[in-house]
């Protein structure tokens, strides 16, 4: 039976689909590689990457392993095995029967849960809502056992599947509490408090929460990229070769055709690659500009906030000074008076307080205001520094893309230029003298 002429076409179409899959993996890998890791305090509205530990006040307890975690997913599969008798007709036209063993496993139960958690790093924490994310958990339980094991009926269903061999595989993966995790996704504003949160967003290139580290995740996408490329090539070339061999084509035609198909596939893949890389670099440049504009946001915040906070502290200090003076006067009067309790019946109730006033010196409260101002000053500067660090990181990633081969050729297609990094002024580099004597 000759293969239909549709086979090479279908193979070619599948090859193109595979190269699309490869480009998708490549795009995600570039996205992960290009996005700098933000600190929890430096999270801004947009695409962010974070590393830290998963913390939660009310952690979940995973169903099978009972591990404290913030996310878990479990499944129980049961093995079955059956012997099938089938009738068939052999080459001589005799009807015969034969037996065949079929086996496999069926998922009999599965489930999971996710809780919003805080990603903690050395600057603070940020809320992460894992719903809708691709989560790569750590395996907390993976065991195969028989009915005698407490898990078997304890967590699994009472009914067996048909032809069961009474072997169940229990598997559970989780994001354990305090585990170091990697998150890449989009941050948005929280509704309850003034802070950002990382949550599912359909505009996101990728929303991934993983216990693997960044290098491994990136490597995984590289592996996926090359696998798709090879698989697509295999489909396109293989289908053509099969068809040409069956047809049959003359050997030189077959060789020529195969070379043509290979060239076509390389062109499709190369064109797609240039397209993907160009768009990825353009997107990166826009994110570099976003990073610079976000520094501006923090500078504006500092400009608007600090003088107001200082004014409030001044107000508080002035108020306190006046009140302290008045209190001093009151204290002097109490000291002169022969006895507070002797003043009259109406005063008896408040007398102890008045004595307390006489004896204890009011705490200087403006200090808290000054402390708050100090904290806010540091916080503002840290926010600015984190925004600047992010900018320098992403601008470096972008500038590197413009230099490395072969990306530089894709970038040259639309004349992309390097973005300057930020640097301190000369006088700002020297040690800052701390002087109190004026």
């Amino acid at each position: 039976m000759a293969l239909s002429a549709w086979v090479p076409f279908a193979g070619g179409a599948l090859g193109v689909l595979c190269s699309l899959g490869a480009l998708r993996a490549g795009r995600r890998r570039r996205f992960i590689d290009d996005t700098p890791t933000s600190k929890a305090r430096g999270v801004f509205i947009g695409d962010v990457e974070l590393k830290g530990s998963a913390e939660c006040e009310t952690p979940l307890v995973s169903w099978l392993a009972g591990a404290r975690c913030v996310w878990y997913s479990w499944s129980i599969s049961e093995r079955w095995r059956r012997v099938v008798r089938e009738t068939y007709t052999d080459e001589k036209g005799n009807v015969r029967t034969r037996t065949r063993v079929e086996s496999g496993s069926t998922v009999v139960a599965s489930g999971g849960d996710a809780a919003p958690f805080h990603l903690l790093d050395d600057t603070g924490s940020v809320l992460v809502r894992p719903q809708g994310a691709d989560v790569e958990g750590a395996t907390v339980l993976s065991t195969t056992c028989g009915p005698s094991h407490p898990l078997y009926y304890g967590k699994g269903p009472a009914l067996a599947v048909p032809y069961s061999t009474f072997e169940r595989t229990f598997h559970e993966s989780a994001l354990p509490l305090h585990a170091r995790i990697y998150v890449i996704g989009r941050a948005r504003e929280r509704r309850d408090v003034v802070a950002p949160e990382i949550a599912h967003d359909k505009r996101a290139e990728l929303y991934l929460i993983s216990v693997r580290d960044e290098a491994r995740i990136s490597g995984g996408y590289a592996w996926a990229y090359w696998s798709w490329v090879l698989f697509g090539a295999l489909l396109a070339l293989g289908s053509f070769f099969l068809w040409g061999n069956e047809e049959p084509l003359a050997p030189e035609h077959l060789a020529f055709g195969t070379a043509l198909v290979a060239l076509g596939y390389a062109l499709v893949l190369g064109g797609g690659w240039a397209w993907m890389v160009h768009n990825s670099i353009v997107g990166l440049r826009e994110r570099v500009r976003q990073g610079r504009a976000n520094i501006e946001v923090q500078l504006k915040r500092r400009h608007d906030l600090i003088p107001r906070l200082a004014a409030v502290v001044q107000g508080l200090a002035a108020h306190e000074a006046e009140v302290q003076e008045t209190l001093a006067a009151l204290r002097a009067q109490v000291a002169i008076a022969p006895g507070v309790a002797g003043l009259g019946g109406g005063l008896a109730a408040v007398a102890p307080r008045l004595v307390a006033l006489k004896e204890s010196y009011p705490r200087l409260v403006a200090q808290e205001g000054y402390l708050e101002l100090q904290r806010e000053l540091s916080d503002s500067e840290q926010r600015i520094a984190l925004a600047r660090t992010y900018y320098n990181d992403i601008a470096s990633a972008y500038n590197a893309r413009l230099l490395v081969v072969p990306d530089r050729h894709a970038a040259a297609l639309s004349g992309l230029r390097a973005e300057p990094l930020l640097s301190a002024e000369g006088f700002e580099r020297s040690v800052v003298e701390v002087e109190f004597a004026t």
Partner: protein
Amino acid sequence: MNPVPWRILRAMGPLLVALLILLGVALVVGLWLMGLYNGLVRLRQAVKNAFANIDVQLKRRHDLIPNLVNTVKGYAAHEKDTLERVVNARARATSATAPADKLKAEGELTQALGRLLMVAESYPELKANTNFLQLQGELTQTEDKIAYTRQGYNDSATAYNTAIKVFPAVLLAGMFGFGEEPLFETPAAEREAPKVSF
């Protein structure tokens, strides 16, 4: 094998078939263009919305902060005023000699002290402090909120700017009149660190 569509195509002749294919291609391209255009319109609208959201927060600040400041001022004045009343009443009570005057002065003092105690249950820790600190917190949160809204604007504008610059939209965005949206900028004078001096 001679299915019906095939017979229809043969009856139509090559010219008509070519026309049909052309129409089909035009339809697909037209639909794609429509999708691209609508997508860009949506993104640009999102940028405008994000910009308006900054104004919402600026308006909130404009309306809220003066009132908060006045409230704290009012409370601080009240606290000071109450203390002064106590001092004055106390002075009158100690200087009064006539029994009637003394009783009256003591009544005033009791009243004033009662008010003072209402002001600050754990006297002498002054309560205006809390209001001042609260005001500081409010100010910080307001500015944080504005900053996040501005970041949201930057994000929307970046999404839109990217969408009009990637291939193949870049070939058509100009034709459809989609220009670049500016990101947030701080005036040069406001970039310097403010000097805190008392």
